[in-house]
């Protein structure tokens, strides 16, 4: 009995180290092993393994969206987060950050033809520069927007900016040198300026309450710097460069948990940051409301046309329109946006806002058409017969009698759809349109908390949607004259 217990203890696996990262970030950070997609590889994977080994624990990977790493580690979804996570004052005010384990540089990539023209951010005045949202590079570009008059385009991933650069939707991309080098191999005809724009460091993030584990990780990182493990990993992944020895010397020499002063200045006052973001949020609300109104207008026009076609059209027209409605309703709007913006880019290169407008408009048209079709069918036959006996043509019956009456029936569900569209408009951030939710998420990433940005964002959405519901209510009242 005792022997069995001892055996069980001896054979039980070591405790796990759950580490969160985004395999969509890809090589050389974290990616699925092409030889065995159930396995991961990347330099972050190997650094995580080294840390786990030092702790005597078994590493277990937890997939998480890059932009959600901070929130997930804070709420305890995993013990440590690492996937090219940047060391920033705001982040380290909210989370426990390890010492930097890699030094990268934000570099400017341009099309080969522009290599002598766009050499610095200042030379890009009036041009579009893309980057990953919520990064040091993004912050630097927002600064440059004010100082140098460039126009910032934010992405949710680090692949599409380079494709858009190659296709001419962007004139430059500012991102980590590792990402730039990787993308240059993937997309041809690009050139990366050798002079770095700004330096940054990758860190391991932990929940604030986990400072003790952080300190142990720092010891392990320093030891692996000294014994050459990290250098070997970086060399394997071809990201070893002349900046790393200096970083290693600083970190392991200092022997403290403090990062170099250059990359960890005191966090600025939170109130000041919030104030700084208010204009940006308001601008984003304008994008949201303009986009929603335009998309709804398109959806209504198309919806009316589709509904009319389905009620009055010949069997072929009816079948085609029914297919359109089923296909559009049956597939995610996110997919439709991707196809419109990226999928069709070799045929027609739509500007992001237009693609967003078309995507939402075409999608909602399917839903609107069903509302109108139902409303058209609901107009009493007597109303139509009365119109016919007066000599109105079928088209006039539709435009003068059936349509207006159906519109009143459709008003309540339409209002409902518009409010839904207002919120669905947040999806267009995947094709680089920075609207209210995206701006809020950038804001939250930069101050390291969702509480205040979230509340402000919710308030703005309500401010946008409430007047609309009231207007619709008033219209309904006016049409519904009091009965005698």
């Amino acid at each position, binding site marked *: 009995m005792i022997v069995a217990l001892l055996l069980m203890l001896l054979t039980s696996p070591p405790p796990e180290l759950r580490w969160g990262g985004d395999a969509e970030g890809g090589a050389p950070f974290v990616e699925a092993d092409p030889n065995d997609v159930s396995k991961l590889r990347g330099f972050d994977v190997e650094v995580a393994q080294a840390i786990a080994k030092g702790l005597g624990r078994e590493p277990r990977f937890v997939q998480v969206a890059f932009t959600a790493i901070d929130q997930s580690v804070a709420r305890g979804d995993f013990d440590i987060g690492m996937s090219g996570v940047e060391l920033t004052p705001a982040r380290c005010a909210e989370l426990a950050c390890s010492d930097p384990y890699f030094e990268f540089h934000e570099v400017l990539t341009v099309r080969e033809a522009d290599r002598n023209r766009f050499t610095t951010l200042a030379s890009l005045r009036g041009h579009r520069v893309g980057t990953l949202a919520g990064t040091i590079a993004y912050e630097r570009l927002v600064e440059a927007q004010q100082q140098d008059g460039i126009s910032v385009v934010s992405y949710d991933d680090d692949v599409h900016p380079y494709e858009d650069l190659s296709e001419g939707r962007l004139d430059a991309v500012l991102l980590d040198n590792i990402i730039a080098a990787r993308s240059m191999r993937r997309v041809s005809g690009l050139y990366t300026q050798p002079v770095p724009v700004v330096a940054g460091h990758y860190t391991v993030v932990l929940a604030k309450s986990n400072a003790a584990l952080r300190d142990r990780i720092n010891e392990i990182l320093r030891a692996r710097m000294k014994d050459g493990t990290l250098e070997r990993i970086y060399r394997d992944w071809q990201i070893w460069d002349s900046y790393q020895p200096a970083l290693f010397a600083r970190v392991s020499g200092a022997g403290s948990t403090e990062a170099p002063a250059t990359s960890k200045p005191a966090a600025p006052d939170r109130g000041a940051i919030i104030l700084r973001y208010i204009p940006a949020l308001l601008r984003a609300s304008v994008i949201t409301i303009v986009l929603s109104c335009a998309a709804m207008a398109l959806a209504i026009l198309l919806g009316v046309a589709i509904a009319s076609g389905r009620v009055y059209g010949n069997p072929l027209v009816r079948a085609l329109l029914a297919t359109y409605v089923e296909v559009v309703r049956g597939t995610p709007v996110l997919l439709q946006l991707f196809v419109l913006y990226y999928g069709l880019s070799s045929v027609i290169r739509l500007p992001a806002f237009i693609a967003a407008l078309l995507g939402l408009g075409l999608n909602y048209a399917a839903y609107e058409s069903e509302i109108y079709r139902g409303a058209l069918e609901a107009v*009493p036959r*007597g*109303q139509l*017969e*009365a*119109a*016919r*006996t*007066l*000599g*109105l043509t079928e088209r*006039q019956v539709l435009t*003068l*009698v059936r349509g*207006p*009456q159906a519109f*009143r029936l459709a008003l309540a569900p339409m209002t409902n759809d518009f409010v839904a569209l207002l919120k669905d408009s947040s999806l267009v951030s995947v094709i680089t349109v920075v609207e209210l939710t995206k701006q809020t998420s950038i804001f939250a990433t930069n101050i390291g908390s969702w509480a205040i940005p979230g509340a402000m964002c919710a308030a703005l959405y309500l401010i946008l949607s409430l007047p609309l519901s009231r207007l619709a209510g008033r219209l309904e009242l006016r*049409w519904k*004259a*009091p*009965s*005698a």
Partner: protein
Amino acid sequence: MSILTIENLRLSRGTREVLRGVTLRAERGELVALMGLSGGGKTTVLRSVAALEPFDAGTIDVDNVVLRPGPIAPRATLRELRKHVGMVFQLHYLFDHLTAIQNVMLAPLHVAKAARAETEARAMKLLESLGVAHRRDAYPRELSGGEAQRVAIARAMAMDPPLLLMDEPTASLDPARRNELGETLVELTRDGRTLIVTTHDDDFAKDFATRVIILADGEVVEEGNAREVLTNPRHAATKRLLQKSVL
């Protein structure tokens, strides 16, 4: 020359024969009461004349516009027919989204393409002559039953059709209102217009109709001077009809 000639009109719904060879005529300036028990086919005859209902056999001739059996009359025929035939429905079917005067103005504006000012003046005159001018800006749901009926008559009259069909105009009217309506309808026949009115009310028919046609089981069984036929009914169906209205 009759304004309306119906020859051997037949119409079935499923296996049920609703009209089994209806033949009738109406002359200019007549006020014809079309009577019969419920389900006798009165409304169906009106709907067929207004080309709202396709029929299986026979012909309908309205002022030389001829409707033939088949699903839908050709568009040109319909357009011509609508100029000659107006219809007032039992439930009025005023357009809910338009005011009284807008209901009356719709066809002149969009079918006859008449000028707005002129159309409005004419619509006002019609509403005045029917005693509902003060309700010009009311929506249908704000009108009483009698008011709605008058607006519906004005709407049908706006295109000045020589033949006006009215389905059960006396239903749900009290005797005083009924007499007012009767006088109004007689007034409408003064300039040669023909009215065909379905009704269950034999007193109304006796007082105002120039002629009565009795339909029973989808056939015309008796017709003639309204007062004579309804005072001395010869056909069993007419007698039953009169008994019923006494009860």
